[in-house]
């Protein structure tokens, strides 16, 4: 019969043995699980897919793209320039200039109108005041215009 010390040692040896076997198994597993070689036709499929996607993207004209930088910054990138883009930009600018001028003229007309109205009101007020003052002076001299 084994004593407690012998039993303990036996258990320790069992654990060590088990541990060694597990390590051996892990090594076999690591060797078995190397990355698989990809067949040439599979690679070709992956690349064809990318080329098709690129073609579609080019046909669609790209569009605005959100670019994220490694430092956390983000910016919208312009779509890639297309042949018609120059004409479109020129047309937008011409329209902008036209409408800008038109709006400016309208604004100036409005300002002139407001100023004229203000001047008229001022003149009317002065006339009324002068008339009232004259009427008062005449009344003081005994002349009543109401009669």
């Amino acid at each position, binding site marked *: 019969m084994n004593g407690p010390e012998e039993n303990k040692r036996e258990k320790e040896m069992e654990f060590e043995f088990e541990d060694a*076997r*597990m390590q*051996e*198994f*892990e090594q*076999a*597993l*690591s*060797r*078995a*699980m*190397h*990355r*698989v*070689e*990809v*067949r040439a036709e*599979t*690679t070709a*499929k*992956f*690349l064809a*897919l*990318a*080329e098709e*996607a*690129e073609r579609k*993207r080019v046909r669609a004209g790209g569009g605005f*793209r*959100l*670019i*994220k*930088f*490694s430092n956390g910054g983000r910016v919208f990138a312009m779509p890639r320039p297309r042949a018609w883009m120059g004409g479109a930009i020129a047309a937008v600018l011409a329209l902008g200039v036209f409408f800008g001028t038109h709006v400016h003229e309208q604004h100036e007309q409005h300002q002139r109108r407001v100023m004229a109205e203000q001047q008229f009101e001022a003149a009317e007020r002065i006339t009324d005041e002068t008339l009232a003052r004259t009427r008062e002076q005449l009344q003081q001299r005994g002349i009543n215009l109401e009669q």
Partner: protein
Amino acid sequence: MRTEAAEFRGVVERHQRMVFSLALRVTGEYGTAEEVAQDVFLELFRSAEKLSGDDHVRFWLRKVTVHRATDALRRQAHRPESHAEEWMDDAAADGDLGPGVGTVLEARLEELLGSLPEQMRIAVVLRYQEEMLPDEIAKLLGQPVATVKSNLQRGLKLLRRKAEITMKEYVR
């Protein structure tokens, strides 16, 4: 990172073995793995501008591949049929195996891997194929480290027990 086709070609060539192997070991089917890898690379092509640097690309690829492969696995109505011998033969023909490594043993281990529950299988694949540490796996899968360690330990024990039963000639 720009999405030019030529640059993309380089990324595919650098990472296709990793992506395809992960997809294959999680799904257990060559055709499904091929579809998963195609989806992953297409998504990479679309998302390339969000990624910066090769480490970021690798992390993203591993994460998306595992998710896509898991989805594909769940869609499969039947248990994945393992074609381990088929693709192990391919790998051997390519001279990819180290000297003295038994292809039969490896093919059997691949088959047994396919019989593990999903989460254990994923943890084992990431640990032994990708040589990732438990905390790296946890970050990738969005799981607690303790869960990953438990899945690894249980998966490994289960795999070894199955190997002992079915491969007495190879496993002591």
